[in-house]
């Protein structure tokens, strides 16, 4: 097990390294020039050159990358003279657009995204799995048809549409104050305010993301129900309740773990549309603004690396958990 973990962790580090290099290369060769963005009116080559120096883009890409990697481990400074400042390690650089060390930006955005992710994840797993089980048990009945309709709606309606409609409807109904909406408060200082901020995005994200889990659960439960070992369980004299809970669901839901783990990790990387529409200052909005309006390479790099790390690490956790759930894949 230890050897397995060590191997996987090494692979994780390599993957993250490769991702950071890719992002670096992509942004170096895109026809975008962050220096031109802050060029202002007197946009002449001298100003652009000064900007490039300010942003640290006046050196070769390998050197830029080297500085970035170094900044992960030791404090990094920018500017000269009285305008000198630094970001402490572990640093992902400095956002000249947001005037803040990227690590600090991530630290501020992550709790928002985590709050969004954990709530909607729990809700969507509960909804998706219970709808799926009901649909499977009532195969062909109205409950099943309702679940199918729900799945079609959930899969075909994009979240930016449903999120927007939900928010507009909720503010129309007076459920939320649109101007106050999306304010981040910590659940530890203001749990009610926290719930108020998140309940709508949770519902939107959960309702429509749970559709695929409904479908998955339904088909897995139906498939598992026809397994020989379910017949064995029945032949033993077990009640249907025990068969469902202990025998069917264990086997039907274990494969969901992989899907759920990755989905959760992706969610932790930032739900771009939901955060943007509900005005939540999380990682998704941080990164989409960095990409679309600011060409803010340090932020893009950090959010991409974080998202990739989350997926890779979650994959590892899922594999370990899966091995725990399914003895057949357990490693010696």
């Amino acid at each position: 097990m230890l050897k397995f973990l060590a191997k996987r962790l090494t692979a994780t580090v390599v993957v993250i390294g490769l991702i950071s290099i890719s992002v670096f290369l992509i942004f170096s060769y895109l026809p975008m020039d962050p220096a031109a963005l802050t060029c202002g009116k007197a946009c002449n080559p001298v100003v652009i050159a000064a900007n490039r120096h300010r942003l640290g883009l006046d050196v070769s890409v390998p050197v830029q990358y080297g500085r970035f990697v170094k900044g992960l481990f030791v404090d990094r400074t920018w500017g000269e003279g009285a305008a000198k400042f630094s970001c402490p390690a572990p640093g992902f650089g400095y956002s000249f657009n947001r005037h803040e060390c990227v690590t600090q930006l991530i630290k501020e955005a992550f709790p928002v995204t985590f709050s969004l992710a954990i709530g909607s994840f729990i809700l969507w797993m509960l909804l998706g799995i219970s709808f799926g089980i009901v649909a499977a048990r009532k195969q062909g009945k109205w409950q099943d048809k309702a679940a199918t309709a729900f799945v079609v709606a959930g899969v075909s309606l994009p979240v930016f549409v449903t999120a927007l409609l939900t928010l507009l409807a909720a503010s129309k109904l007076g459920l939320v104050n649109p101007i106050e909406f999306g304010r981040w408060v910590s659940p530890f200082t203001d749990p009610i305010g926290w719930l108020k901020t998140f309940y709508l995005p949770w519902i939107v994200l959960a309702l429509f993301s749970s559709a695929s889990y409904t479908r998955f659960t339904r088909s897995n439960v139906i498939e598992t129900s026809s397994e020989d070992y379910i017949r064995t369980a029945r032949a033993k004299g077990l009640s249907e309740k025990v068969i469902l809970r202990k025998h069917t669901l264990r086997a039907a839901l274990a494969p969901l773990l992989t899907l759920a783990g990755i989905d959760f990790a992706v969610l932790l990387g930032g739900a771009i549309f939901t955060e943007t529409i509900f005005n939540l200052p999380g990682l998704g909005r941080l990164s989409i603004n960095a990409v679309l309006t600011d060409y803010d390479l340090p932020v893009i790099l950090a959010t991409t690396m974080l998202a990739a790390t989350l997926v890779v690490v979650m994959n590892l956790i899922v594999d370990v958990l899966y091995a725990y759930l399914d003895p057949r894949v357990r490693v010696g």
Partner: protein
Amino acid sequence: MSGSKMARRHLSRRLIATTAATALMAAGALVGMTSGANAASVQKGGTLYFVTNQQQFNHMDPSRNYTGRDIAFFNSYLYRNLVSYKPVKGSAGSSLVPDLATNTGVPSKAAKVWTFTLRQGITWEDGSAVTCADVQYGVSRAFATDVITDGPQYLVGALNIPLASDGSSVYKGPYKKTGQALYDKAVTCKGNTITFNLNRSFADFNYALTYPAASPVKKSKDSGDKYDLRPYSDGPYKIGAYKLGDELHLVRNTAWKQSSDTVRTPYPDDIVVRFGLSPDVIDQIMLDNSIPNTVDLDSLQPAALRTFFADSSKAGQRLNVFDPYVRYAAINVSPGHLDCLDVRKALFFAYNTQGLIDLSGGSVFYGQPGDNPIKPVLGLDYAPTTGNIHDPAYNINGNPDKAKALLAQAKTSCPATYERATNPDKGLYYDLPKSATQQKASVIIQTAMAAAGIVMKFNFIPPGQYYATVQDVTKQGDLSRAGWGADWANASTVVYPLFVKEGGFDMSQNWNEASYPAYKAAVTAALNMTNRTQQAAAWKKLAQTAMDNYWVISPIFSKGQEVWGSKVGGVYFWEPQGTFGFGQLYVKA
């Protein structure tokens, strides 16, 4: 998500955000301006809200603030300048009044030296006095181009400090302090009197000082790049709390005294700006008037705009006015490009101006064809030109026959350019910022040109670096879409930047033309004029020359729309800033 809305208002003040307001659609009624604050009904107290889809103001650091709306906002609430525009509606708003200074400045030595004396009793938010040294320090920051980006460069260009070989100032700002002694000689303090020594006659220098870049900065509070997050206030409000992308909360600055300020009348107790709201949410708030004490800092999306302007009950909550901008196609007249007047004229007559106006919202919301790079709102400096749209052969939808006739002349007068403009394998290149609207515009342009036998091709450039690209003489095409507005109520901030190489925005590349030295000399002479009437006459003549040379074609005098909630009072359009007069807004009871 509206991509264009996210990118809007991101360029420096007078460069038009090329992807912004062009998405408006036709419909609705034109309404006049509402009257300014009526002293009898004004209310003190309450919270005034502003909403925007943007994550932050372009800049909060006064030295970097160069966007009309942001200048007006912060100048009204947080920072004060030596002089200010008069906070009233109409053209009177373009006149200067003293703010920090006791008067609007005293020029001497043919306006090469300007002196200002600070008013007594002006303090920072901690109660300490605003000193001459603070102004001196604030102005010096503009020279630190490695920290202070995006700001106006008028002071850098005008102060009497030598230039290095690459064209930049030898003074590198207060952080590096390279060349500090030279700066300290150019800007001097003697007691409460500050003196600016300029490198030329600058009759309207005091107008340049309306920019926050000329406002004082307290050195001990200067945090370099991070000053953009927390500018220190000497105005009626100060920052209570700020979280980028979330909210800016301004509270009353108790150290500010009304007696020290003749410009600002701070009514609300709290001013809250909410950032990052979805454009659809903003539209709903404004249409439903659900939060009546709200001002929309963005403009509504086309459908919502139409609805809002069609609703007679909202007549007192909207403005549809000419903004400070002229939008036009800059013609690159350098050799090898459009160095042939006949071809340039052919382009002008072939142009389907109405098609482009209709595409962007029609003449009600987008604007009307203009005859001048100087906009009529400049008053003194504008006069209708002759020729161009006043030519009998001009047709707003394009006149292909006239264009063909001009091309026929070009065939003999400049065969090489004619060949390029008409040969399908060659063709002319038009620079456009890449956007859905501009893609459609390109089709309208191409169709109109094809009708006249002109082959038009397009370079679509990412919006974020559009101007950086087309201002590179090696990368500019034959025509470039552009927009410009005067930096203050003097056409010196139009003619000089647009048609003189050193002006910084000369996309006509006209400096190879035989007539250029004479033209430049005339511009320089006009810049140095201290007689305003004489100067105005000079600008009118120089604008006519530019139009006659077809350095720009098809200017459009563009419009902007603003909306606010029913409980916002004191709204007026502050002409020189092209936005609200924020300082007089109040919340109705």
